[in-house]
C-alpha cells in the first residue's frame, strides 16, 4: 500500500510539470501562431516522450543513484512533500523549480534518515544551478549576435519565413529537454529504487505530463508566454534557443537544471544586447530568493518529517 505513495506523488508532479512548464516550450510557438494549441500540445507530448527515452537516463542516474541510495520511506516522503510544494506553487503562480524542490526533499529526508548522501553530487548539482542561467545568458547573447550578422541581411519576408520554422524547432527543443531533464529528475529516484522499470515509468510519466498540459496549461501559456513574447520573435528565438541548448548541454552532463531559470538567463542575455531592461531587477531578486529558498524549504520540511517518523 505504501508503495503507491511515491507513485501517486510522481503522477501529481508529472501532471504539475505538464500544466506549468508547457508554457516554457510552447508559449513562443503558440504566441507565434505557428501552430494551434491542440496540435502544439500533441507535439509537445511526443517530444517529451522522445526526450526521456533518448536521454533521460543520464539525469535519472544522477538523481536516482549518484545522489543517494533511495529507499521506500525516503522516496515516499520526499516525493510527497515535493508534490505538495509544487502544486502549491503552481496554484499560487510562483515560479518554482521542480528540480530544486525534488533534490532538496531527497537530500533532506536522506540526511535525516542517515542514508549515505553523496555530497560531491550535491555540490556538482548546486554548481550547475548557478552556472546554467549564466551559460544560457552567454549562449543567447552569442546566438543573437550571429543572427544579427547573418539573418538580418536577408529580405524581410525571407526572415519571417525562416524565423517561423526556427521558433518551432526551438519549442521542440524545450519540450525534449522537459522530458530528458525535468521528467527524468522526477522519475529517477522511483526507477532506481526498483519500484518500477524504466520503460513503464517513462510512458506513465509522459502520459500524465501530457494530461496536465491538455487540461491546465492553457491558462499559464497566456501569462508566462508573454514574458518571452514580449520580446520580438527575433530576440525571442535567440533567448529560447540559447536557453534550450544550455539545458541540453547540462542534460548531456547528467545535471538536472531548471529550464525556467535558463530562459530568464537567455532573456537577460538578449536584453543586455539591446540595452533595455527586459528583466526587471525586482524580478531578478524574486528569482534569486526563490532559487535559494526553494531547495532549503524542501530540505527542512523533509528533514523534519523524516526525523519525526524515525
Amino acid at each position, binding site marked *: 500500500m505504501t508503495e503507491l505513495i511515491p507513485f501517486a506523488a510522481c503522477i501529481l508532479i508529472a501532471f504539475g510539470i505538464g500544466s506549468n512548464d508547457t508554457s516554457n516550450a510552447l508559449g513562443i510557438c503558440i*504566441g507565434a501562431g*505557428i*501552430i494551434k494549441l491542440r496540435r502544439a500540445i500533441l507535439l509537445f507530448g511526443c517530444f517529451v516522450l522522445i526526450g526521456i527515452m533518448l536521454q533521460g537516463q543520464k539525469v535519472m542516474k544522477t538523481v536516482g543513484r549518484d545522489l543517494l541510495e533511495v529507499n521506500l520511506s525516503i522516496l515516499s516522503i520526499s516525493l510527497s512533500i515535493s508534490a505538495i510544494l509544487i502544486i502549491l506553487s503552481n496554484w499560487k503562480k510562483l515560479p518554482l523549480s521542480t528540480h530544486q524542490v525534488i533534490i532538496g526533499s531527497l537530500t533532506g529526508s536522506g540526511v535525516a534518515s542517515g542514508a549515505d548522501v553523496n555530497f560531491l553530487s550535491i555540490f556538482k548539482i548546486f554548481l550547475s544551478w548557478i552556472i546554467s542561467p549564466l551559460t544560457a545568458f552567454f549562449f543567447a547573447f552569442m546566438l543573437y549576435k550571429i543572427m544579427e550578422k547573418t539573418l538580418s541581411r536577408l529580405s524581410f519576408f525571407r*526572415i519571417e519565413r525562416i524565423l517561423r520554422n526556427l521558433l*518551432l524547432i526551438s519549442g521542440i527543443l524545450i519540450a525534449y529537454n522537459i522530458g530528458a531533464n525535468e521528467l527524468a529528475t522526477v522519475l529517477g529516484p522511483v526507477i532506481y529504487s526498483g519500484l518500477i522499470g524504466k520503460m513503464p515509468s517513462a510512458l506513465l510519466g509522459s502520459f500524465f505530463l501530457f494530461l496536465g498540459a491538455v487540461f491546465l496549461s492553457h491558462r499559464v501559456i497566456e501569462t508566462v508566454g508573454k514574458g518571452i*513574447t514580449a520580446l520580438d520573435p527575433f530576440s525571442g528565438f535567440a533567448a529560447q534557443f540559447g536557453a534550450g541548448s544550455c539545458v541540453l548541454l547540462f542534460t548531456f552532463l547528467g545535471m538536472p537544471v531548471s529550464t525556467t531559470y535558463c530562459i530568464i538567463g537567455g532573456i537577460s542575455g538578449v536584453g543586455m544586447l539591446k540595452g533595455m531592461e527586459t528583466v526587471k531587477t525586482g524580478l531578478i531578486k524574486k528569482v534569486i530568493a526563490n532559487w535559494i529558498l526553494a531547495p532549503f524549504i524542501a530540505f527542512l520540511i523533509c528533514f523534519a518529517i523524516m526525523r519525526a517518523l524515525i
Partner: protein
Amino acid sequence: MIEKVFFGGKTEQKVIENIKKHIKTLCSASDCFKKAIEEHNKDLIFCVPDLEREGDSIRREIISNIYEGAFLPFLRPNICRFVEIADEALDVVEDAAHEFEYLYLKLDKEIEDDCIKIADINTKMCEMLLVAFETLLSKEDLREKNLAIRIYEKKVDEIKFDLIEKLRKTDVKGFWEGKTLSDFISYLTRVSDVIEDASDYLYIINMSLR
C-alpha cells in the same frame, strides 16, 4: 503538422500578391484621376469610385487572410495597418474625384495646371510605393525608395503653398463653390501625405524583424 509549416507559405504568398494588387489599384485610381483633370473627361472620373470599391474588397480579403494565419502574430497588426493606410490614400483620391465632379470640371487655367502637376506627382508616388513594398521581397534598400517618396511629398508641398496663395485671390460665386474648391484642393494635397505615411510605415515593418 509538417504541412502546416510549408503550407503556410501559400497564404503568405497570397497576401503579398494581394497587397501588390491593392497598391496597383491605388496607382490606377490616381492615374485615372489625373487624366480626368487633364482631359476634362467626366467619364474617366467614374473609374475612381469603381477602383476604390475594388481596393476595399482586396483589402478585406488581405486582412481576413492575415488573421486566418499568415505571418507571425507579432507582424500582423503592422501589415494590416499598412494596408489600411494605403486604402486611406485610395479613399482620399475618391473624395477628391467626387469634389471634382461638382466643380463641373472647370478650373482656372493656372490652378488647373498646378492641380495636374500634383496629380502627376501623386501617381508617381503610388508607383514608388509599389517599388518600396517590393523591396521587402528583394535585397534592395528600402531607405532610398522611402527618401524618394519624401522628396515627392516635399515637391507637392511647394506647389501646394503657391496654389493656396492663388486660391485666396480667386473669386468664387458662392459659399458652396468655394467650399467645393477648397475641399478639392485639400483632398488632392492630402494624398501625398497619406502615401508618405504608408511609406514610413513600411520602414517600421522592415525594421521590426531585425
